[in-house]
């Protein structure tokens, strides 16, 4: 009898199908890994399992009984606890107080609490599972690894039967990770279920009994880790069953360099170097793909090229001319187009009309304005032209952009960038969450762009897409370029292994 069983779970967000008929099953007493790239649907699935989202379709069964979660609390009552990547702790409270905080069953509901009893219970749990933390310490005084232990103690204190951990090792040192793995094994050995979310292959191999691989919102398969290797997991994670059409030869003559990066460094959002010394050239008419698992600096690299993030070091040149870093307007003027990863909130202003979004950058141009006044007629014409040219399905140019489906929204973004006639186009995961037809359309437009002489820097994790489009593939890992492959000869396994940090 499986502890958790999800069948046919579908969850749609405006423009994106995050989970598309996902099946997932984890048994009592096992550590079950949920493996997938960012955007594969792992977070959505865990949010459904913890009652944060309700699935649009599908069934959740716990110990063979169908359940429906109306709120996170229902999931907690059913014995499901989650350790989030970003901890849910009150820094000024003690460890024992934090443990008590989420417990609304017995002790937590009393008007008067007995701190001694909780402290001794926490200490006892800490000893038993090797996650000891001083129960009286205040959380802000603890290291990140210790804070994670507090989260695990919270779950143990509530007698969780199903424990979900979202990329728990991202914040840990290797030694701490090993100790965590031992704890998880202990927990599982008692007949509880541990769901371990990760995209790191060796961890999955090290700790899990079985692994379910998600890709593009669908379940790819469930395997026993004893029967798999990192190589085959990588292949599953990035996809291999459909050998997509790939470019047999270079479609276009590669012209002069459109974009040149020389030893570019950039800081990440939380400090630290996200991009470390990237040197790269993109010729005009060439499509260069940066392959990498999300979080390895490719987003920051794209932002640096498009001026949204200032480079800490290094130089950028567009068509031979130096580009001032950290100024999106300078980048736009120099001819850098950008299809951003987050198309709904960065690529467009969602509440504004399609027409407004078509001129999101071009509103400064003289053909859509007369002095300070905008020429609404010209803007409307431009929008109608784009809707027609790129086959955007919408009721008209005055519809708010947020009402468009993901594919149509992306066509608007792509069409707008092409209307700006860029020399370089940075396209970040341009087909993430799109259906097959929209994906094909986006690919066709990108190829056309390259044929017209644009240099395209394609950033993403989808190897099918990269192999179908790119002339050259460059792999990024932890901010560095770790390999360059010719797209016509590269194999999916080679790229996948480089992406996962293998050599």
């Amino acid at each position, binding site marked *: 009898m499986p502890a958790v069983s999800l069948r046919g779970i579908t969850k749609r967000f*405006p423009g994106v199908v995050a989970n598309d008929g996902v099946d997932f099953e984890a048994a009592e007493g096992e550590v079950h890994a949920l493996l997938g790239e960012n955007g594969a649907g792992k977070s959505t699935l865990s949010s459904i399992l913890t009652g944060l989202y309700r699935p649009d379709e599908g069934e959740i069964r*716990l110990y063979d*009984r*169908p*359940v*429906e*979660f*109306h*709120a996170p*609390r*229902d*999931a907690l*009552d*059913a*014995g499901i606890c989650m350790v989030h990547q970003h901890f849910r702790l009150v820094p000024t409270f003690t460890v024992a107080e934090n443990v008590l905080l989420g417990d609304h069953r017995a002790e937590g509901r009393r008007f008067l609490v007995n701190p001694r009893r909780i402290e001794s219970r926490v200490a006892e749990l800490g000893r038993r599972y090797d996650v000891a933390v001083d129960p009286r310490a205040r959380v802000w005084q603890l290291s990140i690894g210790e804070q994670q232990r507090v989260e695990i103690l919270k779950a143990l204190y509530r*007698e*969780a*039967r199903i424990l979900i951990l979202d990329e728990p090792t991202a914040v840990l040192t290797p030694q701490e990770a090993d100790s965590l793995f031992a704890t998880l094994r*202990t927990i599982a*050995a*008692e*007949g*509880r279920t541990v769901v371990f979310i990760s995209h790191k292959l060796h961890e999955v191999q090290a700790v899990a009994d079985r692994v379910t691989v998600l890709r593009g919102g669908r379940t790819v398969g469930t395997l026993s880790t004893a029967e798999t290797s990192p190589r085959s997991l990588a292949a599953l994670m990035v996809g291999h069953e459909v050998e997509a059409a790939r470019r047999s030869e270079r479609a276009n003559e590669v012209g002069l360099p459109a974009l040149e990066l020389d030893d570019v460094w950039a800081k990440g959002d939380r400090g630290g170097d996200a991009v470390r010394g990237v040197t790269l050239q993109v010729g005009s008419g060439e499509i260069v793909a940066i392959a990498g698992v999300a979080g390895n600096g490719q987003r920051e690299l794209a932002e640096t090229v*498009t*001026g*949204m993030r200032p480079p800490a070091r290094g130089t950028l040149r567009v068509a031979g001319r130096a580009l001032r870093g950290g*100024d*999106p*307007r*300078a*980048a*736009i003027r120099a001819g850098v187009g*950008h299809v*951003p990863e*987050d198309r709904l*909130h*960065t*690529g*467009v*202003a*969602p*509440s*504004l009309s399609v027409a*407004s979004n078509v*001129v*999101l*950058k071009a*509103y*400064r141009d003289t053909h859509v*304005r007369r002095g*300070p*006044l*905008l020429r*609404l007629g010209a803007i409307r014409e431009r929008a109608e032209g784009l809707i027609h040219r790129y086959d955007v399905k919408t009721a008209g140019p005055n519809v708010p952009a947020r*009402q468009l489906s993901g594919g149509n929204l992306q066509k608007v973004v792509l069409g707008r960038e092409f209307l700006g006639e860029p020399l370089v186009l940075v396209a970040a995961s341009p087909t993430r969450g799109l259906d097959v037809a929209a994906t094909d359309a986006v690919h066709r437009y990108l190829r056309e762009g390259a044929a017209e002489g644009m240099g395209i820097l394609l950033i993403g994790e989808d190897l099918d897409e990269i192999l179908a489009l790119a002339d050259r593939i460059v792999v990024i890992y932890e901010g560095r370029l770790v390999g360059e492959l010719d797209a016509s000869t590269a194999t999916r396994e080679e790229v996948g292994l480089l992406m996962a940090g293998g050599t």
Partner: protein
Amino acid sequence: MSFPLRIERRLRQPWWLSAAVPAGSLVVAFCVIALVLLATHHPVGHTFTRLLDSAFGSRRSLESTFVSGTPLAFTGLCAAVAFRMNLFNIGGEGQLYAGAVTGAGAALVLGGVPGPVSIAAMILAGAAGGALFALIPGLLRAFFSTNEIIVSLMLNYVAALVLDYLIFDSLSYWRDTSTPDARVFPQGKMLPAAATWPGLHVGLVVPLGFLVAIAIATIVHVLYARTRFGFEVRVIGDSPRAAAYAGMRTRRKILAVMALSGAIAGVGGASQDGDFRHVLDPKGLTQAGYGYTGIVIAALARYNPVAVCAIAFLLGGLQNAGYTLQGADFPSGLVGVMQGLILFCVLGAELLVRYRVRVDRPSHRPGPAAPVEADAS
């Protein structure tokens, strides 16, 4: 046990909702008011008739409604202009005082110049005063990312104290010190006759300030709907990330919009001097709470500048009716209750435009977790 009612965001907002919901909420408000009146033994029908009469029923009551509504139109526009960019300038109150001080100052300095010159100078000085005062939270927000809500709110108190100081605690330029009496009972200098704003006589007197507010509303409407500037403001308000992506200079826009917002409130202050008070009047200005009512008006108008003027007129009527209703047989507290109920219902119902309420069917719920045999190992 969870509550069976859930509130969900509407994916689409039918167009008729934005008319039907405020109308329905008014009906609800008047029903509740009727209950309150019944409970306190006041005649329901008679009270409602008097309410409408004293707000909009006669020439005199309409004129009083314009007097109450004019400052509200300015502070409403002040809030709407800033809120459109998600910039929460709560400082309309203080910016109105600032404009009243500079506007009165301009009138006093210029003295006997011809009326139009004096009036134009008062408007410009009021705008400048309000704009400069609003730039304090604006600059702090743009360059140091402080919270403009708190800074602008706190500056309201600063402005009120400065206003008091100018008339009551100092021998400032604005204070009347010409007679021994005025030294004992502090008051502001009377503004010269040239500084009296003429009303528009169309059967009744419409104050010049209200016409200025309508003109500003029209300009703001064109500015936001038709110009590059307005386009950038709308994009920044909707998605700052998209604005940065499109290469817009957010910081400059923050300064410009704060200055514009403050300037409008400042003109409202000058209108208080020129239209109604003819003296810098700290007590009268600080008692009314124009700035805060303006925020309510902006919200009710959904930040549409033209609608702000209309709603300011309606709320002005409600305030004005309150003054008329209260008396020996009708306590002023009850007037406050009525006004509060109307605002409460109308504002509360706004939720229904953007969200819908759904009733959950009872369904399978998980039982409590059976304890795990922790010692199984």
